[in-house]
């Protein structure tokens, strides 16, 4: 059974046409299913968990990066997580802004998302963890003054720019080939002096007293933050134009 989780921001009238178009297209393709609207639901976690307990085979996040992270955050480290990993697939229909996760999976728009759901191409993806938050794409922080502690060494960045810790690459302009199922995170630093740094690590600590970490372009958290990765945690429905092998 397909369960579509509509994020609460889709309640705004400006998205109504898009949602109507989506529902018509899904019906045409025989992909219609149950709809859960997060707007008005007080306990989002238990609403999502309940659908998995009821046997949802595919959970589809309709919204943006935050919608995807809400769903993962509702499931991971709960008693139903084992069942979710074994039996449930996660799909994405991007609506609105901040949809870098969908872009990484090769899903550019609503029409493509429907085709991807129909084709049901699967990939297991690692999950990044920063303190008690989860990320599929990346976390980022301003580079000047940032210190990364990794294994037996530390990296201090002495110029303005951006540090990105990438699980699933969303920006093809970063000159790295990131693998989201190797159990490692890619660290990519680009400064305004035009120099680039890249390396990989399984875990690290990030500190910067002046700046916050941004998770998947949406949520901000303070440092110091412990960052790690768990291998092959989520089964995703992906497009053929995804940004990874």
């Amino acid at each position: 059974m397909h369960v579509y989780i509509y994020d609460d921001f889709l309640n705004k009238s400006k998205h109504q046409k898009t949602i109507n178009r989506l529902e018509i297209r899904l019906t045409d393709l025989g992909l219609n299913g149950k709809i859960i609207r997060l707007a008005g639901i007080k306990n989002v976690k238990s609403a999502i968990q309940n659908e998995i307990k009821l046997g949802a085979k595919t959970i589809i996040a309709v919204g943006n990066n935050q919608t995807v992270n809400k769903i993962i955050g509702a499931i991971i480290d709960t008693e139903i997580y084992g069942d979710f990993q074994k039996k449930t697939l996660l799909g994405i229909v991007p609506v609105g802004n901040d949809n870098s996760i969908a872009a990484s999976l090769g899903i550019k728009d609503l029409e493509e998302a429907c085709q991807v759901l129909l084709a049901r191409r699967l990939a297991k993806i690692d999950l990044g963890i920063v303190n008690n938050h989860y990320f599929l794409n990346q976390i980022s922080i301003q580079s000047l003054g940032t210190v990364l502690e990794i294994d037996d060494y530390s990296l201090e960045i002495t110029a303005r720019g951006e540090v990105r810790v990438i699980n699933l690459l969303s920006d093809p302009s970063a000159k790295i080939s990131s693998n989201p199922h190797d159990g490692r995170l890619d660290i990519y630093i680009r400064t305004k002096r035009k120099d680039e740094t890249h390396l990989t690590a399984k875990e690290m600590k990030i500190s910067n007293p002046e700046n916050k970490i941004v998770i998947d372009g949406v949520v901000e958290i303070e440092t110091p933050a412990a960052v790690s990765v768990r291998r092959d945690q989520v089964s995703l429905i992906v497009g053929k134009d995804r940004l990874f092998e």
Partner: protein
Amino acid sequence: MFNKSSRLEKFKDAETVIGASIRVKGNFQGQGNIIIEGALEGSLKTDANIFIGEQAKVVASIEAKDAIITGEVRGNIKAKNYLAVGATAKIFGDVQYGEISVEKGATINGQLSLGSEEGKRAAKIEDKENAPAK
């Protein structure tokens, strides 16, 4: 030294690149080929190859299969296979190699010594592999 272009090719897709704005402190053990353009203090080791850029300042012992040095290194260098020292290199420390080339203008302030027989053999095998087919 850089006529051995096939050896420089190895760095085209280096797994680890440390840019000029980065200071590394501690024991840096990279995976695969490493390029250092910034500052590093501690030790630097890989089973693959290391390139130290012109602007780099390294205060560390270095251990690699092949190493190309064009910046400043204060510490001992051990290149099991091949060591190339560029014209802009400044090395303050002992150097051990399987095979070496030094460009005019380079500074080496330390002892040079030929490494193990194993290293020398590896260098010869690699030379044969890289030789053009007749």
